[in-house]
């Protein structure tokens, strides 16, 4: 796909045309919004600043496809998948220890599948192609540099960096990513908000497919996703490792203020993870294919912006629609789900002839009713717990030491009980049992 979607890139934009909607950003949110609008018969232009959809995008492991079921029947027969994730592993580590909870399911390797690894250049181009097939006009290599307004301050389109490049529309759907300058210009997002963002850095490494199969215990198009806690030298965040067809992707996610304060360079932490005794054997001989970095909105439900203003709605990363802190790490599915809901809400607003903030309010109401905001609301306290000092800096060592105590045979000394081991490990890592109990209860309240 990718560059073959370029034909419209060199087309001159007709400044006189007025669209029902201009969608900014051809990632999963924008593609979904454009798809919903085009299928509803609305005129829609999808503007992408990169040379092809996905060219500016990076993700961290798994795309969960259930959200595609309702719009692309049997999508798994055509999606550009790398591998279907049949092993989902959560690893807690210190510099010299690790504990894994490793789940494997044969069902996840068969239709209708659960999660897949993919390359965003291929996946996002495929999705945007669905919107184009439905009648959306894709314009690549074009930056939306600002908003256009009417005399009352309602948004009426975007300015682009093409000559005569103003695009007028009843509604602007801002799916312009984590740095959303359109949402910032509209006053929906703060100019900068380091506290609620993490930096993801990722290396994609070449490794022969047969070697991946052997080292990760899979075959054919089966894949593995490993999520890791305790690999970031105490900087709140985590690590990930997942398999593609002929490459593996490995990286870390780092809280921005703590990264800045630590004065540690991000690629050093990826190097740490790759050198860990539990990870290094998986990557032996692998060579760097591509290095990448991207921000992730991490604030969850409580920092989500207002999702609509007069003549504009916000979806995807631009609206903080990811959940990167917790035992579920998802984003692409939230982007797609929110974009779809945005497109449908804009269609209803245009049908009623009211695309003011009030006329667009059904967007948020729709999200509240489905997983996009229901999940976010339920897990609103997850970022606070998962990124807390104890979970990030003390529990990985505590858990590993507890396991070491459980499985180290101390003959002739009799085995210590689990409670005594817990006490010892907790004391060694400066954790009070009261704190351990309270965090456990908190985790059960959030995730239970």
């Amino acid at each position, binding site marked *: 796909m990718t560059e073959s979607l370029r034909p419209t*890139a060199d087309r001159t934009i007709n400044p006189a045309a007025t669209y029902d909607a201009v969608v900014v950003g051809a990632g999963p949110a924008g593609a979904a919004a454009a798809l919903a609008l085009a299928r509803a018969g609305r005129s829609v232009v999808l503007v992408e600043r990169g040379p092809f959809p996905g060219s500016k995008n990076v993700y961290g492991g798994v795309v969960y496809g259930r959200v595609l079921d309702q719009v692309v029947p049997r999508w798994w027969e055509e999606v550009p998948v790398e591998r279907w994730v049949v092993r989902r592993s959560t690893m807690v580590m210190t510099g010299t220890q690790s504990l894994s909870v490793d789940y494997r399911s044969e069902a996840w390797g068969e239709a209708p599948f659960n999660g897949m690894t993919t390359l965003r250049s291929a996946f996002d181009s495929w999705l945007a192609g669905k919107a184009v097939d439905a009648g959306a006009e894709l314009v690549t290599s074009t930056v939306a540099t600002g908003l256009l307004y009417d005399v009352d301050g309602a948004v009426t389109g975007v300015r682009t960096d093409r000559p005569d490049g103003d695009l007028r529309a009843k509604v602007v759907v801002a799916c312009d990513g984590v740095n959303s300058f359109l949402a910032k210009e509209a006053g929906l997002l703060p100019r900068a908000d380091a506290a609620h963002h993490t930096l993801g850095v990722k290396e994609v490494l070449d490794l022969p497919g047969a070697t991946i199969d052997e080292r990760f215990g899979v075959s054919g198009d089966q894949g593995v996703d490993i999520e890791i806690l305790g690999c970031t030298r*105490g900087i709140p965040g985590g690590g990930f490792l997942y398999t593609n067809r002929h490459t593996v992707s490995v990286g870390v996610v780092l809280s921005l203020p703590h990264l800045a304060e630590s004065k540690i360079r991000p690629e050093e932490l990826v190097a740490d993870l790759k050198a860990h005794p539990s990870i290094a054997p998986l990557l032996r001989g692998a060579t760097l294919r591509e290095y990448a970095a991207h921000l992730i909105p991490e604030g969850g439900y409580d920092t989500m912006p207002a999702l609509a203003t007069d003549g504009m709605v916000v979806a995807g990363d631009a609206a903080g629609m990811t959940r990167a802190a917790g035992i579920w790490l998802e984003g692409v599915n939230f982007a797609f789900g929110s974009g779809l809901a945005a497109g449908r809400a804009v269609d209803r607003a245009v049908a009623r002839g009211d695309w003011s903030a009030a006329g667009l309010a059904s967007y948020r109401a729709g999200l509240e009713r489905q997983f996009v905001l229901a999940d976010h609301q339920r897990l609103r306290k997850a970022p606070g717990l998962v990124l807390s000092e104890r979970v990030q800096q003390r529990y990985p060592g505590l858990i*590993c030491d507890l396991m070491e105590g459980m499985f180290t045979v101390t003959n002739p000394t009799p085995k210590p009980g689990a409670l005594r081991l817990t006490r010892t490990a907790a004391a060694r890592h400066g954790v009070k049992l009261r704190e351990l109990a309270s965090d456990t209860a908190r985790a059960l309240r959030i995730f239970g």
Partner: protein
Amino acid sequence: MSAGTVPAAPGGATPDRWRGIAFEERMATVDFRVGERAHITVASEICRSCTTQACVTACPADLFAPTADGGILFNYEECFECGTCYMVCNHDGAITWTYPDGGQGVVFHHG
């Protein structure tokens, strides 16, 4: 494990070959379509009064270099367009951040 709360970096004890990739080699794996316009500019006179200069270590592309007179030298050409620099910057107006012109800048093929 010691009583310390931060796990020791394992890298120190590992052979160089696991760590060893020069930063230039790392960046050479990325497709940058460099435009003529600098999409990010730095007001170095503001940076001279900055005590943290967080951009210098946090930028994943290592594009911010401190200068002898206490300012910051910035090279826009191999930028991931991630936004880390302006997010961690403490000083309004020090970093002016826009996207590169359409079609230019970083192109991820394996993102």
